[in-house]
């Protein structure tokens, strides 16, 4: 009976998890294409003496993404044998891209032209040793800049 519950849980979570992931990736790709004009740079010093910049301000965003039961189960076995845990790689990738997108959306809503000195920080929200499935919090922040007149 217990094995049956476990298997049905795994099957259900496999379906919900992969459907959510697929939808999320479609959403991310569409928004990334729409926001491709807002550039994201990881350096910032080069801009500090620029006189062409009219306005600058901090933009930041975070996103918390959970792994479903099926992924956690897969990862458990991966941990025994070693190697890439691709189930978690996609979760972290989605988190990072989503956080960057939200930051870009904030910047473009305020008519910024680019984001400089982008930093990304990832934190596991469950302290080590807790029994819960991992939840990951990704924070992206940077300085949005607005040029005087970009023609």
């Amino acid at each position, binding site marked *: 009976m217990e094995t049956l519950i476990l298997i049905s849980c795994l099957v259900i979570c496999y379906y919900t998890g992969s459907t*959510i992931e697929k939808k*999320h990736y479609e959403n991310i790709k569409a928004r990334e294409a729409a926001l491709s004009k807002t550039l994201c740079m990881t350096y910032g010093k080069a801009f500090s003496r*620029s006189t062409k910049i009219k306005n600058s301000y901090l933009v930041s965003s*975070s996103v918390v993404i959970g792994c*479903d039961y099926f992924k956690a189960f897969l990862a458990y076995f991966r941990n025994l044998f070693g190697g890439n845990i691709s189930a978690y790689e996609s979760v972290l990738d989605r988190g990072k891209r989503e956080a960057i997108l939200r930051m870009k959306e904030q910047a473009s809503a305020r008519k910024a032209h680019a984001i400089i000195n982008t930093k990304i920080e990832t*934190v596991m929200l*469950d302290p080590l040793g807790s029994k819960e499935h991992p939840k990951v919090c990704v924070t992206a922040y940077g300085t949005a800049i607005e040029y005087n007149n970009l023609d």
Partner: protein
Amino acid sequence: MILTNIESVPGKKVVGHYGMVSGSTVRATHIGRDLLAGVKNFFGGEIEGYTELMDESRKEATQRMISSAAAMGANAVVNVRYATSAITTGAAEVYAYGTAVRVEDIQPKV
């Protein structure tokens, strides 16, 4: 208050330094949200309740940093950094820190 995470404010020059300012928050969600998050985490996908929690904590920490900078008489905080750590399940600390400075517009050379 101008905030940047680079070492200056583009188009302005730093005329005074006030030292490091910081703000932190430790926030938790109520148990209803925790339960909902547990369900979400089981099936996969974004956990909006926790995203909101992290957003609110970051804003609160930033606000505290800004008010301590304002108390010093600064008008900008440069090189702002965020650090997040998980305290227990469902509670997180967000720490914002930076350098409080006074900036002025660069006068164009005549």
